[in-house]
C-alpha cells in the first residue's frame, strides 16, 4: 500500500515570538516493511538555519531555528511511503515470555534495536507497581510472549476510555492509568511500563494510521493526529512486533512508522523552545490517504 501523508501543525501566539528552535521527527522511517519515496517539511516563517541527522535509534531528526518575529508558526510535512509488512507470526509460535525475559537480560548487543535499551525506566516511563500488577494478569506462567502481550493490549483497549480531555501531553503515566483513560500516548506508555515492569523489552513508536478506513471497516481512533503504539521484543528469533493498544490491533499495513524510541521524549514529532511571553494555541491536522494506482 502506498500512502500520501500530510501533517500540518500550526502554532498561534498571543504575542510575537522572536525566536524558535524546533526539533522535528516528521520523516517516516525507511526499512522494516516501509519504503519512503519522498519526504519534506515546509516551515513558515522560513528558518534561518536547518540541519538534519539520524539519531541513535535510526530516526531522522531535523533541527531548525526561526529568528524572524512571528505570530504563527506553520510546519507542513509531506511524505509518500509504501508499506508492505510481512504478516504477524502466529502468536502461539512465539517463545514463552519467561524465556524472552531471560534472553533480554543476557543479550549481547547495544545496537540501536538491541533489547537492552528498552528494558529499564526511561524519562517518561517509570515502573509503577500498580501497572506492573495489571500486566501480570496477562502473563501467566509459560504463556507465549506475543499471546500474552496481545492479551494485555486487548485489555487496555477494553478497560480504558479513549478520551482526549482526560490527559494532556504532560500527564504522568501513573495518572492516566489511575483514570483508566487517555489518548494513544497514554495507552502506549502504560503498556510499555507494564511490559518493562515484568522484564520484557518494550519500545514506543510514533506514526500515523490511515485516515479513511478500508470499506466496511470502522474509522480508527487517532487517525486525525499523529499516533503512537508499542513495539514488544519477542526474543532473538522473532524480534520486534508492533501492537496498537488504542485500537487493539497488530500493526500491519494501515500503520506508518515515524520514529522509534524508549518513550515519547525520544520520538516526539515536534519539540522545541520559543521565546515569547504570551500563550499559544495549537492546531494539528493529519491526512493519510492511500494513493490509487
Amino acid at each position, binding site marked *: 500500500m502506498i500512502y500520501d501523508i500530510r501533517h500540518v501543525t500550526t502554532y498561534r501566539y498571543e504575542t510575537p515570538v522572536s*525566536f*524558535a528552535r524546533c526539533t522535528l521527527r516528521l520523516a517516516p522511517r525507511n526499512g522494516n516493511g516501509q519504503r519512503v519515496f519522498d519526504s519534506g517539511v515546509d516551515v513558515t516563517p522560513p528558518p534561518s538555519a536547518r540541519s538534519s541527522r539520524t539519531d*541513535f535509534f535510526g530516526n531522522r531528526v531535523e533541527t531548525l531555528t526561526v529568528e524572524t518575529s512571528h505570530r504563527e508558526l506553520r510546519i507542513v510535512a509531506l511524505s509518500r511511503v509504501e508499506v508492505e509488512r510481512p504478516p504477524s507470526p502466529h502468536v502461539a509460535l512465539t517463545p514463552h515470555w519467561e524465556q524472552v525475559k*531471560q534472553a*533480554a*537480560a*543476557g543479550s549481547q548487543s547495544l545496537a540501536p534495536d538491541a533489547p537492552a535499551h528498552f528494558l529499564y525506566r526511561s524519562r517518561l516511563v517509570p515502573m509503577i507497581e500498580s501497572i506492573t500488577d495489571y500486566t501480570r494478569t496477562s502473563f501467566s506462567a509459560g504463556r507465549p510472549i506475543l499471546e500474552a502481550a496481545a492479551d494485555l493490549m486487548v485489555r487496555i483497549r477494553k478497560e480504558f476510555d479513549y478520551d482526549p480531555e482526560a490527559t494532556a501531553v504532560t500527564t504522568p503515566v501513573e495518572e492516566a492509568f489511575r483514570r483508566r483513560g487517555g489518548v494513544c500516548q497514554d495507552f502506549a506508555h502504560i503498556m510499555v511500563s507494564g511490559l518493562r515492569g515484568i522484564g520484557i523489552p518494550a519500545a514506543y513508536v510514533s506514526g500515523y494510521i490511515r485516515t479513511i478506513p478500508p470499506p466496511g471497516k470502522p474509522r480508527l481512533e487517532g487517525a486525525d493526529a499523529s499516533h503512537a503504539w508499542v513495539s514488544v521484543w519477542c526474543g532473538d528469533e522473532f524480534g520486534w512486533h508492533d501492537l496498537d493498544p488504542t485500537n487493539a490491533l497488530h500493526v500491519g499495513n494501515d500503520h506508518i512508522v515515524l520514529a522509534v524510541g524508549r518513550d515519547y521524549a525520544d520520538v516526539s514529532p515536534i519539540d522545541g523552545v520559543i521565546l515569547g511571553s504570551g500563550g499559544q494555541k495549537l492546531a494539528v491536522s493529519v491526512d493519510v490517504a492511500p494513493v490509487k494506482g
Partner: protein
Amino acid sequence: MSGESLKSTRPVNKRALAEKRVAEWTAGYAPLGGIPDEYMGADGAPRPHWTRFLEALAHQEPDEINRRFGAADRHIHDMGISYRVYGETNERTWPLSHLPLLIAENEWKHIAAGVAQRAALMEHVLGDVYGDGKLIAEGALPAAAVAGSQDFLPPMRGIKPPGGKWMHLYAADIGRGPDGRWWVLDDRAQAPSGAGYALESRLVLSRAFPSLYREMNVERLAPFFRHYRDGLTHSAERAEPRICLLTPGPYSETYFEQAYLARYLGFLLVEGDDLVVRDGQVHVRTIAGLKRADVIWRRVDGDYCDPLEMNAASRLGVPGLIEAIRNGAVVMANMPGAGIVESRALLGFLPALNRRAFGKDLRLPNIATWWCGQKAEREIVLERLDEMAISGAFGETIPGFPGKRILLGSELDGSDRARLVRAIGERGIDFVGQEVVRLSTTPAWVDGKLAPRPFVLRVYAAATEKGWEVMPGGFCRISDEMDARAVSMGDGVKSADVWVLSDKPVEMTSLLPTGDSVKIRRLLGNLPSRAADNLFWLGRYLERVEATLRLVRCLCNRVVDIDVGASPARQSIERLQRLIASWGAASVDLVGSSPAELATVALCSTEHYGSASSLASSSMRAASVIRERLSTDTWQLVSGLEARLTSKPESILSEPECFDRADRALRVLAALSGLIQENVNRVAGWRFLDIGRRIERGINTCRFARHFADKDATADNLDVVLDLIDSQITYRSRYLIGVALAPVRDMVMLDTFNPRSVGFQVERIDEHLATLPLLREDGMLEMPKRLSVKLLSDLSTEDAEQLDTNKILGVEQRLMGLADAIAERYFLQGPHAVRGDKLTDLA
C-alpha cells in the same frame, strides 16, 4: 628533621607529660569486635604512626589544642566553606573532624597503585562500551548490565573522545575490610566531587597545626592538582586552551567546591547559558564577544549536557554540545556517559574484565558482588539472602523500596522479604547482592577523647600524559552510622583531612609558600557575560541597600532632632516616608504613621522588595553566583551585611534603634566600598561592579533631588538632600549663606568634584566604558558609550539655574536607558538569554 630526633631534643619531663596526655585521650579506646581500626592494630597495640602523631599533638597544652580546634572551626565558618543538602535553599557549614585520617606511606603506595589500575580498567570499559562493543558481543559484559544505568547515553556510541580519553578524573570510595586489606566500595566517574573539599580541609588543618603538619611529613596535595590541570591542557588542541568548569549553578549541592576549584585552578566557572555552539565549536559568551572554549570540566550530569540530543527538558546544558564533541571540537572531562562505570551491576564483572584486558588481578578487591540479571548469580543471592546486603544495581536506591540504599537480608521482616524476593525474581537486572562487610574505624575527637568511628575514603586519580596520577590524600567522611557505606554528607557526618605520611621530609613545592596555602592564578581570557551581569547587579543592589539605609537613617535622625510641632521638619519627614514607600521598602499606608514603624519595616521586612533586608539578600544572591571572583574578605563582608540586615527584631524598633541599625550597616558598606576599590583585582570585573554602583547611585540621587530639591523645596528639604548625599560639610564650607536651591542642585546634579553628584557618576561610567573591549571594528561608538558621552556633555554644559524637576527626571530616565544599553551590549542577550516556553505537540 624526623619526629624521633625532634622528640629526643625535648626535656624528659615534657615528654612524660605528653605520654600521660596521650594515655588519657586513649584510655578506654575500644574498637568494635572483628572490625579493624586505624589507631589500634589487631594485637591491641597502637600503630606507630598514630602514636607519633598523638605524642606530637600532646606536646601542646590542652588549652592551646582547644584554641587551635576553635580556630579551625572559625576558619571554616569565615571562609564560607559549605555544602547544600539537596532540596534545601540554605547552605550548611562544612563540618570538619579535628583529627586527620593517617595513612603510612608503604600502605598508601598499595592504595595508589590499586586506584590507578582501576582507573585504567574503567577507561578501557568505557572505550569498549561506547566503541566497538567487543566486551558485550563476546559475552564478557551483558548489555543489560550497562544499559540500565541512567548515565548510559546511546547518542555517545561511536564517538571518539576528543583528546583521546573518556575520563580525566576518576575516584574510588574505599574502606578497610575485615581482613585488613583495602576494598573498593564504589566508583565515581560521572563528575567526582569532594576534591575541592579535600583541599579546603587541608588548608584549614595545616593552618591550625602548622608545626605538627611539618613534623609529620605529610604529602602535599597541590602537585596533584597541577597534574590534573596539565593533563587537561595537553588534551586540548590549542597550546593555551581555555578551560571551563561547567556548573549546574549555585543550587547544586557542591557549588562552593566548584567555585573554589575554578578559582584555585584558574578555570572559568560557567553555566550552560554562558556557552554557545557556533560553527561546530564551543564558545564562551564574554564581554568581548564569543571566545572559544577548548576544555569543559563537567559537573552537570551527562544526560543534561545537551537538550538537543539528550534530555530535551534540561535547562543546564548547551544545545549542540554533543555535535561539537562528535566533531572533536571540545575536550570533555569527563565525557558524557562516563557515569556508567559507577553502576554496582558492573562490580562483579570487573575482576575478570581486568584479567582479560591486562592479564592481571585487581590490586584492590571489590566487595564480592552478584548481579541478579544472571540466572546463576540470582540463585546464589536468593539462596544466601540472609548473608547478603541487597542494593540497587544502578543508582542510589533500591527499586520498590524508596529511600533505601541497602537492605540486609538478615534484617528483613516477612512481607518485605517476600516483596524483595519476588522483585529479584521478576526484574533481577535491577538488583545486586553483596557480601556484608563492616568497615574499619578511625579515631575521632569526641569530648576530649579519642573514639572509633567508621569512615569512607575517596581517592582521586587524574589522567596525565604519563598515565594516572593519584592524589596523596583524599576526601574522608566519618560517620556515626555503623554501616559506613551509607555515608553521604548530612546529619552526623563529618569530613576529615587525610594525611599520607612520608618516611622522609616532604619537599616544599614552590606553589606553596606555607603549608598548602593556595596561590590563586589569574583567570584566563575575557570576562564572561554572565559574570559581568552579576557583578553589575551586585553593584546596583549594594548601592540600593545603601540608599535605603541612608533614607532610614535620615528619617530617624530628623525625628530625634526636631521639636514637636515644628512644621517644616514634619513636612520633610512625611516626604521621606513617602519616598521610602515609593521605593518599595514599606507600604504606602504606613506614611504618616509612626516613623519608627515605617523605619523598622524599611529595614527588616522580607515582604517588601525595596527593604534593606530584601536588597541585602538580593546582593547575596548576585554575589553567590560569582563567588569565585570575590575575595574571601569581600565575601565575608557581603554575607555579614546580609546576616546583619536579615536578622529579625523581636518587635518594632525605636527610632534610635533604627538609626543605630542603619548606621552600623552603612559602616559595613563603607568597608565594602573600600575593599572593592582595593581588592577586586580583575580589571573588567571591577569595572562592571563599579558601573552598577554608579548607575544606581546616579538614579537614586536624581530621585532625592526630585523629592527634596524641587522648586517649592523648603530649607529643611534641601538640608535633607544634602544629608542623603553626604554633602553637608562640603556645602557649608563652600557657601556661607545657608542652603539655597540652585547651589544645592548644582552640588547634587552637576558638580563633578563632588563624588556623590550625578555628574560625577556619569563621568566615571564614561571612563569605564572607554576601557571595555569593542565589538565594532568601524571605529563608531557603541550604544552605551554614545549614551554616556551625550549625557556627560549635557550635564557638563547644564546651568544649575535652568534645572527643574522635569529635567532631573529626564536625566534619571537616560541613566536607566544607559543601564539597558549596557545590558544589551555586554550581558547574556538574544535567543538564549531568556528561558523560553516549551513548544510541543499533542498526539
